[in-house]
């Protein structure tokens, strides 16, 4: 798939359309080597987090429950902010967040250009 070069830092990849993502549920996107959990909120906002629980027991987060812009981790029930991956009080931690672009109906997730490899014509 042809990536669009948006900035010097990030390369954005088309991963699907808005309708491919169910509301208040997660869907796994394998983008190259990255395994990403993509969530759509009630407001239609789309967020992408690394599909890895920040809790001590490990596991994945794509199966969690979404309330507003907060994800409840399905394994440890920690609260994770969808916007930046920050674990919310009373727990601490951080899940990697990926930038998301929605243009029209198309959803793109950005990888650091250095991770995504070189951009080829």
């Amino acid at each position, binding site marked *: 798939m042809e990536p669009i070069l948006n900035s010097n830092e990030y390369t954005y990849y088309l991963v699907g359309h808005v309708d491919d993502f169910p509301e208040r549920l997660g869907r796994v996107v394998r983008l190259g080597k990255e395994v990403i959990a993509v969530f759509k909120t009630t407001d239609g906002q789309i967020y992408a987090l690394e599909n890895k629980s920040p809790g001590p027991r490990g*596991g994945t987060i794509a199966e969690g429950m979404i309330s507003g812009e907060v994800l409840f981790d399905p394994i440890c029930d920690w609260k994770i902010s969808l916007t930046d991956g920050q674990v919310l009080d009373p727990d601490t931690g951080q899940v990697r967040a990926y930038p998301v672009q929605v243009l029209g109906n198309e959803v793109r997730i950005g990888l650091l250009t250095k991770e995504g490899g070189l951009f080829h014509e």
Partner: protein
Amino acid sequence: MVEAQEHRHLVLIGNGMAGINTVEQILKLAPGAYRITVFGSEPYPNYNRIQLSYVLEKSKAVEDIILNDREWYLENGIELYTGTTVTHIDTEQKTVKADNGMEVPYDTLIIATGSNPFILPVPGADKEGIVGFRDIADCENMLRAADQYKKAAVIGGGLLGLEAAKGLLKLGMDVTVVHLFEEIMERQLDHTASLMLQAELESQGLKFATGKQTEEFLGDKRVSGIRFSDGTTLDAEFVVMAVGIRPNIALAKESGIAVNKGILVNDYMRTSVPDVYAVGECNEHRGITYGLVAPLFEQGAVLAKHLCGVDTKPYEGSVVSTQLKISGVDVFSAGEFMDAEGLSIVRMHDDWRRIYKKVLLRGGRIVGGVLIGDGKESSRLQQWIRTGTVMTEAIHDAIVGQASVETGNTAAELADEEIVCGCNGVTKKHIVDAINEKGLTTVEEIKVATSASRSCGGCRPVVEQILQYVLGDKYDSAAAKQEAICSCTTLSKDEVVTAIKEKGLITSKEVRYALEWDNPEGCSKCRPALNYYLGMIWPTEHVDEKDSRFVNERMHANIQKDGTFGVVPRMYGGVTTPEDLRLIADIAVKYNVKLVKVTGGQRLDLLGVKKEDLPKIWKDLGMPSGYAYAKALRTVKTCVGSQFCRFGTKDSMGMGILLEKKFERLDMPAKFKLAVNGCPRNCAESSTKDIGIVGNEGAWEIYVGGNGGIKARLAELLCKVRTDEELLEIVSAFMQYYRETGKYLERTSDWIERVGLESVTEAVVHDRDNRRALAERMEVALAQVKEPWSEILNNSNLRERMFDEITVSTNQD
């Protein structure tokens, strides 16, 4: 002479809320002072007319809204004639004549004939399919229409019309509200509030045709549409007229009693004729006719005192307030509501949260207010309007500032005869007396003892303040409250369940909105719980909310710590066949499962299945889901029983399979395990199951509340039964009783400890009517369950979005 005084004859025409409330007060003030006869045109005893919208929404049955049953009339020596209409009053001879030919003399007469829906005098208004919304018969008409027809129109965008329209919408009809004016509820709301309400109702699915004057009803015998004065038309197979009410004055007028819009009364409810009084919607007091419930009670209180010779202040009119009884919409209006000269206005308008609050002041005193979207302060606001309270910083903050500012307890300022609960006509004095006389300490107890806050619950904060005021230091707010279901709310499970039923809330969004959740989308604690309670209460109406299910129940498989899943197909009663075993083995190989485990529930678990392989495995297996992941019936463990075992006295496998097939898939508060044994040797371990059944010679023993888990508990004997039919009915009733009274995630072992085995035994064994009713409700719930694996297989869209990953290659690859 004294004797005769004690037996004066009081005749009441009209068996509704206004009349009967007056009689109730008379009975309290001066028991035995009157011999009482009541005539009512409707075939029912007195019922709560303002709750008809609940009957229409099917959240209440007719029996639930009866206020005084026939027993009550009997106990109080009241002669009641239902289905009987009084046709004439002879004010000279002091008698009334009824349509059944009866003629009854009176010493005192109360007319409480209420009002009639106003039927627009336009051509075609007499066609079939056009009704008012006034009594139980109208309600039944509407329920029948919803079964037969699709397109409904409600004429009138006032309180009653909107309640009727929402009710019909909930019954599945396509509903348009037709309103003469551009703005709905224009008599209670200003421009902004009206638009906000309309937008909210539109988002719930109601349609509006405003600024439309009805000119003619179309159709042959039955109505088929409406033509408006602007020439446009609207298709409608069913029309509800809710354009207003007219006091029912025909009888009074015909009998020579002075009438205008209503029957004219003075400040003591006296008509132009001696010993004849009129109370409620049928009268006109100082030029005003009322159509809401609170004024009726206030009038009734004055009239009752007057008739019992108790000193009373005259009735000087009421401040009316309006609260819309529509689930998911908070609308409150009281006193003045329109901007006008000489008024100062405090206004807060938040389009994002969809909240609008307006308080109107005259000379610094609160004279009116409108609340949309946040009705938390409505009962206190009403209190401030009634008492003409002067605006203070604290009140200002409470209404338009940040929530939960302490405004102090104003219960002391309320007059004794002030009506606190408008729905049930309960005064402050009633409540204070009940607290003092019966030693009440919680709002729940007050509710039971006085009915205050029983209906809409809007006055609950005031009731609580009164309790606090009366008890002083003894008031313990912690004790008065049960544990909240999660941190999004302060309400307990019982309070939430009651509100869901009473307000007819069907979706968890409505619950969170109507009950003012702090967190608009809930949390991981309340989301699955609400989804369970709603499904339990509304088995046929509630649509399961998949996004509120824990992952296992959503994916219909058990997630493992590495993100793979375990698949457990049904193996009813732990009985299988060589063919099924071979199939399972082949599939385990085909999908390269990591492990095959024989579970504690007598079946097989295929572990280490990838998420995207789940639907494929289900398809290849062609077996139903074993629900090994669910808050539902897991397995029915059985021993070999009489089919093979030398000791077996009962066919435990047969019964186990029957039970598992009957009750599988149904949502329960928590996981649920059964066992059936063929003899008391108990090889299938009944004592650690939610229900353990033990066969004996000629009988089954039913044990309940066992748990072999974290907190082990031995099951206790519930009862012994002789027949399989009885066994099935009691098991069914027990499970349903647990479903209805258990807290979400509460196992039967904890539940029985909490409610007591005795109360369970009473409910599901001894009380046969209740047992049967529980079993019937269980059947309704069971009729709704679906096999989830095949459901997902048959829905490619759902399957794809829930199970398939998206793979995109990058330049890394």
